[in-house]
């Protein structure tokens, strides 16, 4: 077993999936020859040839649409959209075609495919390179939506997604590619090599879709998080000395409501965090679910800590990002309630 960055873990998953199943094909912009702008597909073309790992022109709608056709007729495409912000030109294919093929063909055809995309901010990418559009996918019936927070999970979840028989949106928090970013943007990043969750076993393993992970046990308040915010939540709980239970949802659809309900029933308090904008964000769904399942156990209203309802800013990135300060304030408030 060796430590890997999230990028290396994702690359590893590709290698294993392609070795195991020749129906797996990988393509996208700059994915083949160049190995991907974030290097997640480096080495695949050399090893598996141009027929199985190749470059696509810049045409996200066409890329996703073509992958659907491939998937409907026996292949298992795992494609890359270079940034989640470029999924919008492909949104029609994702929603109207990939997500709906199974239902409207009465189960005759399906689209077993994975659409990987780097998500979230933290690199001063401004409004077209920083968004967190997970709610736009989670809202669509017929799609699964996955978002890892560690190299270990990234590999296991990606393998599970590729093997899954439905279309999966696989969001990779780009701020976590090289290290577990905890929101302390002034400090230099701690590389994954210093982190336990970077232990990535060789060979095949999966992390099942629909199973959350308790990443920090606690008795007083439950924090529901995913992606980058998992690390922010852990760090904030530690810094504030609050006995918080931090749950990494790992998949938004299907959602592990059981783990959520058990935790909130125990703690009686819940804070929901995400980097995406607030209105109609995935947090709104989480709050509803907690209210439905745990209302009588709650000792305070569920709190939401999110990005603001603004486009992702350019120079004001850290005013937007719901970092330790905002989360800390919400935790203090809910503990006093």
């Amino acid at each position, binding site marked *: 077993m060796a430590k890997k960055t999230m990028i290396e873990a994702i690359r590893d998953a590709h290698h294993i999936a392609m070795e195991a199943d020749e129906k797996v094909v990988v393509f996208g*912009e*700059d994915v083949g*020859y*160049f190995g991907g*702008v974030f290097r997640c597909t480096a080495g695949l073309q050399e090893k598996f040839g141009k027929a199985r790992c190749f*470059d*696509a*022109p*810049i*045409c996200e*709608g*066409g890329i996703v649409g073509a992958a659907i056709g491939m998937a409907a007729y026996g292949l298992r495409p795992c494609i890359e959209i270079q940034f989640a*912000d*470029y999924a*919008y*030109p492909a949104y029609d294919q994702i929603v109207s075609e990939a997500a709906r093929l199974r239902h409207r063909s009465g189960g005759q055809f399906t689209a077993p495919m994975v659409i990987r995309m780097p998500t979230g901010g933290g*690199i*001063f*990418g*401004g*409004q*077209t*390179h920083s968004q967190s559009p997970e709610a736009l996918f989670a809202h669509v019936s017929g799609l699964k939506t996955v978002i890892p927070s560690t190299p270990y999970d990234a590999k296991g979840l990606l393998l599970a997604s590729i093997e899954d028989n439905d279309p999966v949106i696989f969001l990779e928090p780009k701020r976590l590619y090289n290290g577990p970013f905890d929101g302390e943007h002034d400090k230099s990043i701690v590389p994954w090599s210093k982190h336990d969750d970077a232990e990535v076993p060789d060979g095949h393993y999966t992390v099942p879709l629909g199973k959350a992970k308790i990443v920090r046990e606690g008795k007083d308040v439950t924090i529901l998080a995913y992606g980058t915010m998992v690390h922010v939540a852990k760090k904030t709980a530690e810094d504030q000395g609050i006995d918080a239970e931090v749950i990494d949802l790992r998949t938004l659809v299907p959602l592990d409501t059981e783990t959520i309900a058990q935790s909130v029933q125990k703690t009686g308090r819940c804070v929901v965090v995400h980097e995406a904008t607030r209105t109609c964000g995935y947090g709104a769904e989480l709050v509803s679910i907690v209210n439905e399942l745990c209302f009588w156990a709650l000792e305070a209203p569920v709190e939401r800590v999110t990005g*603001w*309802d*603004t*486009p992702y*800013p*350019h*120079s*004001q990135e850290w*005013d*937007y990002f719901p970092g330790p300060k905002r989360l800390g304030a919400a935790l203090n408030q809910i503990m006093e309630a």
Partner: protein
Amino acid sequence: MSKSPRKAKITTDQKLKFYKDMLLIRRFEEKAGQLYGRGLIAGFCHLYIGQEAVVVGMQDCIGDGDQVVTGYRDHGHMLACGMDPDGVMAELTGREGGYSRGKGGSMHMFSREKNFFGGHGIVGAQVPIGTGLAFSNKYKETDRVCLTYFGDGATNQGQVYEAFNMASLWKLPVVYVIENNMYAMGTSVERHASETELFKRGISFEIEGMEVDGMDVMKVREAGMKAVEHARSGKGPMILEMKTYRYRGHSMSDPAKYRKREEVDDIRSHHDPIEGLKKQLIEAGEASEDDLKAIDKDIKAVVAKSVDFAQESPLPDPKELWTDVLIESEGV
């Protein structure tokens, strides 16, 4: 009436202006690259070095009221449009004094005054927008033309062809300028395009296309005049494929390992647009080395001033986060 100096001989003054305008872009971009290296510019920053002849030549073909729209490799277009280097540099450093008041960054700048409509980070998105600008011109019965710039990689987006069809169908005054710098990020034209002669991409829409040496400002201008006149006279769109080259990586974080060093060196030493014009000017006795050195000195001072401005301008006030989202959301 807008100017139509196509036939007129190009004067020495005009040539010197081209030289100055290209050199301003070159020096500005070099400086932006340095500031990036020093951490004063963050995020994405796509330099235009090598492609200067394209915007400078094209800009000479349009006049007041004509529009320009482009993608994210936009600094050169803005300077060519006459936007203030101070405001452009300050936007790069994300300051209040920037053209988008620190909200846009390198890829997203605009100027109502100069009719510059951005600065768009999504590849290909500006092409239908430029087409719509041209529609407005026609609707308002002005004789204005919109220059819509995009890269070779962008020509593969479906919406480009939706735009071509509408523009041709409705005879819109738009000139599509394809800046073919041979690469879309790490992917060369041969690897991304089935038809690599991109000027032919309009054939099925009955849009005439021309291939142009985009490293020669005079040739750019000549082709530009023809295309702009065509669009202005109500004949509809035209496509210009500018064969050009970017010397630097795709963005500041790109080490450009997908191409050979010699390829870059060859173009730099044999086809550089600024060196080319310099040679012409000197050989024709229209300027001396010293004249051109003096120009360079002035330009360096302008760029240095923009750097001072960009460093002195304050960061945006935190409450600026909520402004310019919707009209009614001001001052939450």
